[in-house]
């Protein structure tokens, strides 16, 4: 059952698309009946092609709703709809011009904004060409102007909404999926802790945790399982660290702990404990979660960037070693 209450945007979109496409297919059935009653058999045929296209897309999107692969199906769908509309435009201009006005909203709903814009502009040019050939210049000018204005209105709506979201995202300090702090806040906090460590002569350490085979986990279990796993993972990490330590998610599969007033020995002990506890715990639905963990302690006068680089280099080295060991044991 579709429950919209606890789904993030990436998971809500495919579900809504599946629902809307099914509804459009139903509405097209009614439209076909009406066209058939009026003897518009060309349109009956076009809509008869559109219905399975919508239904197939709805089913495909719903099946792949927790994977990234669902998006591509929208491209052939919009191309098919545009092709059918342009094909029928010279025969039924009065009807098809109305049909075409649904396309801007539809494309901005189901395609990325830039692709939708390019698609609509190409479509507007094609529409103008067909109308110029089949109708008079005034009609072409009127309909193309109206259509272009609708495209522009929808673009403004999409762009300003996107801008608002991006603006909020920049002000956010927390990663929406895992609940850990995000990259933006990481740099602020690291600078602060390094300055503080320098002033109070306390050491600062970091522990990097890389989730092995992150992409494979998504492919095998779907986005939703990974999205549900990450907050549990961060919560478990929080139980293993002190109240003054902070957790950051810097990349999809990279989590970093900043440990103020923690020396090298303390960081290594914590690194081993984290590794052991994560491997001991069951992380259903995953059979096991394998991680690479590395710790670094700040050298004298090292800045945040160099400190982060050193952690990443150590993590990379460890990942390479783990892979070589795995290949050797096979």
């Amino acid at each position: 059952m579709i429950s919209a209450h606890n789904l993030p945007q990436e998971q809500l979109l495919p579900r809504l698309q599946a629902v809307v496409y099914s509804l459009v297919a139903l509405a097209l059935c009614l439209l076909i009946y009406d066209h058939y009653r009026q003897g518009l058999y060309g349109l009956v045929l076009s809509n008869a092609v559109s219905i399975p296209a919508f239904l197939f897309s709805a089913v495909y999107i719903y099946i792949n709703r927790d994977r990234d692969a669902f998006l591509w199906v929208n491209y052939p769908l919009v191309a098919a709809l545009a092709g059918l509309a342009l094909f029928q435009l010279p025969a039924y201009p009065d009807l098809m011009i109305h049909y075409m006005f649904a396309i801007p909203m539809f494309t901005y709903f189901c395609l990325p904004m830039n692709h939708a814009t390019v698609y609509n502009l190409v479509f507007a040019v094609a529409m103008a060409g067909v109308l110029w050939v089949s109708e008079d210049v005034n009609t072409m000018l009127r309909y193309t102007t109206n259509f272009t204005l609708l495209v522009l209105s929808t673009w403004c709506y999409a762009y300003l909404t996107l801008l608002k979201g991006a603006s909020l995202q920049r002000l956010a300090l927390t990663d929406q999926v895992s609940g850990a702090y995000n990259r933006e806040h990481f740099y602020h906090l690291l600078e602060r802790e390094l300055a503080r460590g320098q002033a109070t002569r306390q050491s600062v350490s970091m522990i990097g945790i890389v989730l092995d085979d992150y992409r494979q986990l998504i492919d095998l279990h779907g986005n939703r399982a990974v999205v549900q796993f990450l907050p549990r993972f961060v919560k478990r990490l929080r139980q293993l660290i002190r109240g003054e330590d902070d957790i950051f998610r810097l990349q999809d599969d990279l989590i970093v702990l900043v440990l103020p007033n923690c020396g090298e020995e303390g960081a290594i002990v914590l690194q081993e404990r984290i590794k052991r506890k994560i491997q001991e715990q069951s992380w259903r639905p995953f059979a096991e979660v394998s991680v690479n963990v590395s710790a670094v302690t700040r050298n004298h006068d090292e800045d945040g960037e160099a400190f982060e680089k050193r952690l990443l280099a150590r993590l990379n080295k460890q990942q390479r070693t783990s892979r070589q060991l795995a290949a050797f044991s096979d």
Partner: protein
Amino acid sequence: MEKARFHSLVVLQVKVLYCLFAALALSIIAVLDLLESHTVFAALAAGFALALLLYALMLLMRGQQRHSPYPEWVLIFALALFTLFGMQQSESVVHWVYFVPGYIYFLFAFHVASYLALVYSTAMVLMILSEFEAYLRLQILFTYGACYAFAVMYALINERNNQGLSAIVNTDPVTQVYNQYQLGLDLTKEMTRADRQSDELRLVGVAVPDSWGVLKTEEYEDRLSFLSKRLKRCLRRFDTCYRLASDHFVILLPHSDDHVVEGLLENLQDDLEGSSRYEGLSDIRVHSDLYRPEDDVETIITRIERALHDQRA
């Protein structure tokens, strides 16, 4: 340029460009109507074009100042009325009904837009059923329904996304300092550190001058932004500044003693007294507080706010 200001500048530019382009498009429609001897429709299209042009000029002249949403609401109501009454006269007017759901969901909050769109749609459907012949009726309703559904779904996704983001935005967009929620999180952490390291944790509350309370929102926010910048300039690299829900600022000073606080207050006073940009800055109220082991977050914040309030009395 601050992120919030940059955002409003881009919004302004997009709105101005949209109005100008829409005015141009409507002028073309007006000319076409005139050529086809639909003088009333030509006059209406020209009227809308002129209104959009004036609105774009108004936006440009007001610059980044906050502008009222009423002109946009008036334009959308005018468009709604035009479509409802105009479609009785001319078939081509019906194209404009497809714009309405998108505009409504863009300009109004989701729940308000839902009611407005429902009322408009009911009137529109009745009008289509009574005015149009069977040949066109269902096709128009189908396209309108599709536009309506896509606008609702698009708005729903954005509403959910913004709700989700608002919950994790712990930075105040006006002043770019952290908000009270983040103060709660950071203070809890600092209290643990102070307890563990037997260190002193101090907080300084800075009240916004009372005289600012009567200002217009944008002038008030300008002053808040200015004050937050001045405050940040006086801090050590590991001190942090927060804006409370009451608009007062709180500075968190870990590893500090009386000298650190005195130094901060002196610097702040020098900085503010040297500035003649806004009135009221020189007699700003401040209160310094020390974390005690029995304190919790709420107690400290309440104590600071009360002390700042008492100073006013």
